[in-house]
């Protein structure tokens, strides 16, 4: 089971946080701090896995953004790496050539996509098409209902 997913920039700025198990604010703050320092300190050609307490941390950098996923000890590291990758693909498909800015300015969309992809710490939907379809379905709704003048959200 996955425990949390964090997205942060090369400067250690948090971009997205998802916690799959209940955690107090203090714990969250500590984890965010630990993760950014640990992951940012890694040398370029070392492996993508880390140990933290009894959890395994799987991280990967895409452009300027680090994706950092914590899973329980018996989980498969390579599979977790693919979870991250699939999420990036989903974002890419939705935003069309995604970049950090898309995630900064539309972070709630990134959350919605994540919610369609993962649920309660497990994979819910692996198909790119289906995830996008359900996101787009609600976006369509948005447009008809709110009659947005311009396509972007803001």
């Amino acid at each position, binding site marked *: 089971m996955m425990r949390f997913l964090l997205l942060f920039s090369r400067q250690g700025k948090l971009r997205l946080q998802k916690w799959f198990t209940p955690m107090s604010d203090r714990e969250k703050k500590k984890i965010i701090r630990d993760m950014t320092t640990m992951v940012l300190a890694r040398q370029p050609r070392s492996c993508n896995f880390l140990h933290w307490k009894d959890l395994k941390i799987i991280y990967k950098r895409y452009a*300027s953004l680090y994706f950092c996923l914590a899973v329980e000890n018996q989980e498969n590291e390579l599979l977790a790496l*693919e979870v991250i990758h699939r999420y990036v*693909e989903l974002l890419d498909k939705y935003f069309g050539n995604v970049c*950090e*800015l898309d995630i900064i300015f539309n972070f709630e969309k990134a959350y919605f996509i994540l919610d369609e992809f993962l649920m309660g710490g497990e994979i819910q939907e692996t198909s790119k098409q289906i995830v996008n379809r359900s996101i787009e379905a609600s976006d369509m709704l948005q447009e008809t209902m709110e009659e947005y003048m311009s396509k972007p959200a803001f």
Partner: protein
Amino acid sequence: MSDVVEKTLTALPSLLSLDSQPGSAKLSSTSKLGSLIRGITELTSKHEEEKLIQRELLSIKEQVASPNTTMRQMKELMVRTIYCEMLGYEASFSYIHAIKLAQQGSVLEKRVGYLAVSLFLNESHELLLLLVNTVLKDLQSTNLIEVCMALTVVSQMFPKDMIPAILPLVEEKLNHPKEIIRRKAVLALYKFYLIAPNQVQHIHNKFRKALCDKDPGVMTASLHIYLQMIQENPEGYKDLTGSFVTILKQVVGGKLPMDFNYHSVPAPWLQIQLLRILSLLGKNDPSTSEIMYEVLDESLRRAGMNHNITYAILYECVKCIYTIHPKSDLLEKAAKCIGNFVLSPKINLKYLGLKALTYVVQQDPKLALQHQMTIIECLDHPDLIIKRETLELLFRITNAQNVTVIVEKMLEFLRISKDDHNTIDLVGKVAELAEKYAPDNEWFIETMNTVFSIGGDVMQPDIPNSFLKLLSEGFDSVEEDRKLRLFAVNSYISLLQGEPGKLPQRFLQVISWVLGEYSYLKEDLESAAVLRLLAKLLDMKNSSSETKSWVFMAMTKLCEGTAGVSVAQEVSETYSSSMDTVLRQRAQELEHLSQDSELCAKVLPRGGDREHVEVDSSLSFLDGFVSEALAAGAAPYKPPHQRQEELAQAKVLSLEPYSLSLPISMSSCSITDRQSPTLLSMSSGLSGDSTDLSHKGGSTTLKLDGVKRVWGREGYLSQKEPVEESAQVEVPSPVRSPNQQEEGDSSHSQTPTVTPTLGCEQEKQQLASSLFLGLSTQSPVCLMGKSEPAPQRFRRKAKSLNTSEQISNSLISSPSAVDNLLCNNLLDSSITSEPDLSPPERTTELTTANGTCNTETALTDSGMKGSNPALNRDNSVDATDPPSHEDMDRPKNVCLMSHLPAELCGLAHSEITPLCTNQSLSLSACHVQKEDSLVLVVFINNCSDSDIQQTRIQVDSEDLEVSCVGDSPVEELRSLSVAVCQYSLTVKRPLVNVEVVGMISYQLPVVTTQELQFSYKLPLSSFIRPLMVSTEEYGTMWLAFSNDTKQNLTLISDEQEPLAATLNVLRKKLQLHIVEIIGMEGIVACSLLQDQPCLMHCRVHAGTLAVWLRSPTPDLPDCLIYHCQRALQCH
């Protein structure tokens, strides 16, 4: 793959002005979030950011509170608040508005509301209760999107105790026509299963339906639940093996829709989930494993593509093959697979390869041999993670021959690692290896020194404990013991002469103990010199007061000779006015014992025999002293709680310390304890009257289950290896290594991939030969289980087992640890369903008002046979009442029984006992057990032939509340008739037996008033009722109760399951309720009538039943234990 996102944004502000950029095209310059983000990126200091955000939050606060804000504006405000929170600024004012938005907004606003709620609140937040209603409403909505949102938020966070409110609705969704809804419902139920498994117990068959769902997505989701359930109980799901295998076959064969492919691999997540389930099912089960072999082979074959995801599947396959019952050709293929991982240039795969090797190496040590050069390379890998994983692997293959090299590598790593979690883990492993395989004394002591210095105060406390245990118990040879101890003393003296200030506290404690015990072994060492070294520790600023206690104890053992005494005096003078009471006490002890060398020798005999000494825990040797004191007018002993109570009643300031809640066992005060400073203070608190302690004594031991025993294998070494022999191991013999290499190469032609310079290579070869020494000799690959353990050097003597356990406990035990341990044991185990043991329904049946024959027979039977001593023996009858008389009474009793009031007829009652008789009257009584009280029924039989007038009966008791039931006592009694009086009794305070006294006065027509007195004794057990609690309730109650007693009871050993049999006897005789039996432990609950519960925890230990009782009522545990004893004695 990373070309997906290859746009790096370095200068954010400059990009923002370029509208042609695709990223920025999505930003509307008028958006408020946009301007906030832009504002932040333009700032230069943290301080400015803080000011900006505070301003922002203030304006948001104003707007959300305004009644004119529309939901759409609210949504926008909420997004901005989420952003501020993500930056680390709290905005708790908005939480309630987030809930409101989720409640009242339209679909899209709702969605943001739910998102904000799930980011702001966590499961325990009180505001979350407000969300329940919204979720309920949305679950019933006809809008699919709303239902989806509700299910998502439910699985993200939902108050545990509110689950029942929405459970039916979620269950309903399992039948929803849309697969997405079904899928989400299954996942939500999975989440419920994780946080509150009891609540979804009843829908297990619905999970089966989900497993058979026509949509593969729903089926996949249901596997999460199955994996969890199979992990808990693999036996229960063996019948599904065939289905899982079929599913996997179809998946591997590409039968699923294309949608499920991931980079053209069919449903990898599903495959891995299934492989995991299969490995759980096939573990240690040849026939189930048989079904899987084919599909595993197929999976290995199909996963040929060079992509991360296929490696993930392969890895899981290999693990599965090595977990289930082995099959040789599959193992071969799996081994080859591992080889591919290990030799891969990709570092992630190498890491997984090492992990896989670690997993399989115990079954197949040859595999490690094949990859020895790779392992050596990984050992020097710049990436610490790889290094750490390699050490884990080496730990598994350590034996007596390669231990020195491996431990050295581990210590090397420990010196550079900064991570506490790592240190604790690795230090424990080093200590384990050192104790298991140490080649000689010097090495052992030096390694342990490093362990203590590095592990410091973070390491597990059982490491120093077992080290001291090992030193104090010794091995088989006295000479060897002496050498080891002497070496330790030497090494510690030199450490103390160096810079002791740098050593961790735990290490200092170990040092002081060893010096205190064994420094006499070093003949040329003056004890005064040691004392001075120790005294230096006392003066150090950073010594904790615990360490100081240890130092004091050591000094007490050492002070002798004028020089020594003067050092001791000086120190004790300084500390006898210390603020710390413990230190003050130690100082006093030191002072007194240093002055009286004779007493000192008696209390602390040097090099004392550490054999286990039988401790007379009843302190019966003090009987003479006690009786003398009593004769001289001393007050009799009162147990501490009684004294406390009296003190409280007298409203006097209590000067006593709070009574120890620590469950100290009396017998742990064996002779070895004198060495532990923590225990002396406790044993000094144990003074008591032997008569009182006689029930409490016994050899109750502490709970040892959680204590790790590192080298617990019993038996003697046939012959001890001399030290010289093992010394040769340290230098790897160059002659042997090429042979080994050959062996490795010939069997599998794999050569190391990297060839550095020749000299370096040689070095590595040498390292390899020393690391993998001993592995090749175990050439027969043993497939099942671990290979034979190598003979251990430090082997504990079997006979000293008890002592050693106690010493370790006395050193570490703390009340909370023991409590937790117990609590965990009680709470987290599953019910072993033994049909006639625990089921609560059964016991209820026994006590229901209609009283089944079962109870009655149990009670009356015992009465008839006279086997219930509590009833028979204690029925003191006032008037002389010889046993023969009782026999004669028997027919009369039978007819008296018919006078028993109708409402009591169905209840369990005791035998009718005569109370007193004279020419005209005879009184008998029995007691009837009602749910909430005990009813005493007195039968007044007028056996004269004249009527009796003005009968008046009074019943009273010191220990009981007596109240008359029904009509006022009979006035008139006709000739040869029987009158019945009932009294309801409740307990004022528990005593082993309680007594009712009474008097009857009556008038005969001729004679004037006559009086008769009687008394009736009742065992407390007749007031005991079963207490129906669940294990969880028991757990919370246990922690809340303060009065406790421990005792050992005899175990009924002639049955197959002694624990169950014994508890059953107690259940039958004393009506205790057996809450649960878990392995060797059982928990039992009862209450004194309705309101005074008593809990009992039983554990089978060394042929006896160790019971521990707790209750909020003082004395109740003691009384109950007495009755348990009686019940078992006469069984």
